């Protein structure tokens, strides 16, 4: 212990502190330089198109290239640098692959940026660990109008958990889409909940997403056959169609020697179906459905029908593999496609061992929203990017096919649903799109508040004590409330 005084404070805490300082450097330079190690990777570029893009790199960084603009039509007089704030390379890859006219600086690494016509695209990647990404936004966005032209943030990305914080009308750091010239008509094919997430108190929409991550119950077909006698989708859905039925099934699952899922899996489902926001009139309110989660889960955990493993822990992800007792997970398409180790021998998914049904209540999980930063000097280009990347049918279709994203476009999803080619091998050939589309219609996100992220996290943390038998419900609730006071000093708890 001894020596730690000065130095060892370290890790996790970093986040919280990043606060005022992140301001300085991060806004601009970080990822855009085609730096270091990756230099070698350019040589392995496979297609001729990409190798020519590589040559552009040098020109891009000196911003002297003068090629004809392709997509930013009326952008004369606008900025020469498009700065994009993000926490990983997801959007960079989508933009590089699907936005017409984007020339990547490094075909192997989209976060190195590139060019759209005359405009240099720069990505600033700040990891979301320890809240670093938000701390960075908190510093750059409010001062964006005063930043020098090349440093102005033009686009930033947000997740649903904290979207409201940045699309807040008072904070006014994200532009109204209507001010960019994007109409309700443009967004008509998007699912309502994806618009709710970025709608401010005055009803103005301030962001747009290309994903609709509606989710459902992913069950292990083998276990379903043993417990329910069938893995037929309708029959399984019938067995989990309400929380009462779900709990009955959990008992059967347990009696057969298996476990239903983790109590932490079901939280999102309950919390997506609340009757009011977390904070009302400045006071924390625990919704009935949230309470129901705590009570149902406690009963299930005590009966050994559910476990209380935290998401992404080793114990939790065990169930991705065969010969483990986990009956189901709750998740969207991306969980199935990318996180269940389905390319691995011995995984349930490798042999198409999963089935996908709606479950007791509709919910969603994940998704990235694009916001235009107030103060941007590239409004025309930003508008075009938002329109192309989130509303263009052709681009949406491409993204759905190439990247397996569940796209935010009713027309495209419905087309995929009726196309047999889109059966998913991990799901034993099941085509999930009809269900995903119907699910996305049902998700209701009108009850979100800027306090959601903290409240949801702290409530689960506190209730884990209740499930593990370390506290009564009231004690766990009291701990939740003190945690909320620490996180949100302006919210009252009693």
């Amino acid at each position, binding site marked *: 212990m001894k020596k730690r005084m*000065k130095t060892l404070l*370290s890790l996790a805490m970093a986040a919280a502190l990043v606060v005022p300082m992140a301001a300085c450097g991060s806004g601009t330079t970080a990822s855009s330089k085609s730096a270091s190690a990756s230099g070698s990777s350019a040589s392995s570029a496979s297609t001729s198109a990409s190798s020519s893009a590589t040559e552009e790199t040098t020109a891009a960084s000196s911003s002297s290239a003068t090629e004809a603009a392709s997509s930013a039509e009326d952008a004369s007089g606008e900025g020469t640098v498009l700065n994009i704030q993000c926490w990983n*390379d997801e959007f960079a890859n989508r933009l590089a692959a699907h936005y017409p006219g984007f020339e990547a600086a490094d075909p192997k690494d989209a976060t190195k940026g590139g060019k759209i016509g005359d405009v240099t695209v720069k990505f600033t*990647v700040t990891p979301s660990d320890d809240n670093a990404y938000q701390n960075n936004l908190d510093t750059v966005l409010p001062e964006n109008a005063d930043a020098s032209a090349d440093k102005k943030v033009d686009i930033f990305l947000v997740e649903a958990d904290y979207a409201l914080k940045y699309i807040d009308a008072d904070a006014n750091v994200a532009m109204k889409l209507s001010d960019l010239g994007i109409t309700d008509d443009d967004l008509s094919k998007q699912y309502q909940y994806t618009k709710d997430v970025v709608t401010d108190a005055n009803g103005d929409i301030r962001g747009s997403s290309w994903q609709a991550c509606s989710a459902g119950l992913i069950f292990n077909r083998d276990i379903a056959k043993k417990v329910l006698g069938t893995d037929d989708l309708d029959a399984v859905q019938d067995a989990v169609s309400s929380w009462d039925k779900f709990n009955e099934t959990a008992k059967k699952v347990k009696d057969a020697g298996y476990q239903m899922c983790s109590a932490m899996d079901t939280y999102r489902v309950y919390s997506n179906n609340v009757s009011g926001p977390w904070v009302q009139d400045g006071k924390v309110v625990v919704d009935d459905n949230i309470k129901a989660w705590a009570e149902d889960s406690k009963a299930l955990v005590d009966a050994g029908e559910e476990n209380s493993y935290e998401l992404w822990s080793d114990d939790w992800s065990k169930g991705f593999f065969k010969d483990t007792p986990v009956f189901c997970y709750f998740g969207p398409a991306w969980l199935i496609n990318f996180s269940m180790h389905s390319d*691995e021998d011995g995984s349930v998914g490798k042999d198409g061992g999963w089935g996908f049904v709606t479950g007791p209540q509709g919910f969603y999980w994940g998704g990235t929203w694009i916001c235009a930063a107030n103060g941007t000097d590239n409004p025309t280009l930003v508008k075009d990017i938002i329109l192309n990347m989130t509303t263009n049918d052709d681009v949406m279709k491409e993204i759905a096919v190439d990247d397996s994203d569940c796209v935010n476009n009713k027309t495209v999803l419905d087309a995929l649903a009726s196309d047999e080619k889109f059966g998913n091998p991990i799901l034993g050939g099941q085509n999930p799109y009809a269900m995903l589309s119907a699910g996305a219609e049902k998700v209701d996100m009108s009850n979100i508040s800027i306090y959601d992220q903290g409240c949801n996290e702290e409530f689960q943390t506190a209730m884990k004590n209740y499930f593990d038998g370390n506290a009564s419900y009231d004690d766990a609730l009291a701990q939740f409330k003190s945690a909320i006071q620490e996180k949100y000093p302006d919210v009252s708890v009693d």
Partner: protein
Amino acid sequence: MAAVQANEEKTAKGTVRGRRIFSYIILIFLTFLCLIWFYILFINTTRSNGELGKGFTPIPSSHLIENLSNMLHGSLPFVRGMLNSLIIAGLSAFFSTYFSTMTAYAIHAYDFKGKKAIYTFILAIMMIPTQVSALGFVQLVSKMNLMDHYLPLVVPAVASPVVFFYMKQYMDSNLPGSLLEAARIDGAGEFRIFNTIVMPLMKPAIAVQAIFTFVNSWNNYFTPALILHKETMKTLPVLIAELRSADWLKFDMGQVYASITFSIFPVIFVYLFLSKYIVGGVTAGGVKG
């Protein structure tokens, strides 16, 4: 052990053997506790992301080279990061040991007004938790325009109260005043005495604190994460944190473990190099004869 010691005087030879066996058992147990982590780390570095998802096994897999090359050829500049880490940790170790020894020497060897007060004051500084001043520190660095710069990570090492305190304590037991007086009589200047007589005498203490400072600085995520935002300036712990927050599409625990292994090697070498001043010395003092 108490029982063993009770008999000690009667059967001296027998008990020495008993104590020796006891010591070996404890030492071997501790060695196991200390090394097992490196073994697990190595095992995990040889496994792919999917294999890691299955939970721990004690048998290495075949993805070692793949993980390392994915990490080195990925989008994060790990080689550059290692260089940054080496520069920062190396300079920190040098600054903190040299200047803290100098400060301790000032208190130890001279008499001047306010000496007691300054000594107490420095000890008081030691009690300030780093977290306390961290916010203010970063605001200050930002105002001084030193963001994305090595200086704010290196220069503060000059004022390391902990290192100072150790040096002072070490001088109390190991640096007799008579020696210095002899040097003065020979006409040596004060700086020369410090650099040519005091510093060499302090070698073991310097080696110890150089190791500690180096390791702490090497593994420090906290301050560098606040100060360094340019990809090419970042140190290894910051890059590892970035790798760990990759999205679910790219997330690869195999690479994370590879990066941890990669970042441990240099510090082991530095440790082995510096530790010979301590380890070797004790051996000579304690065992000979």
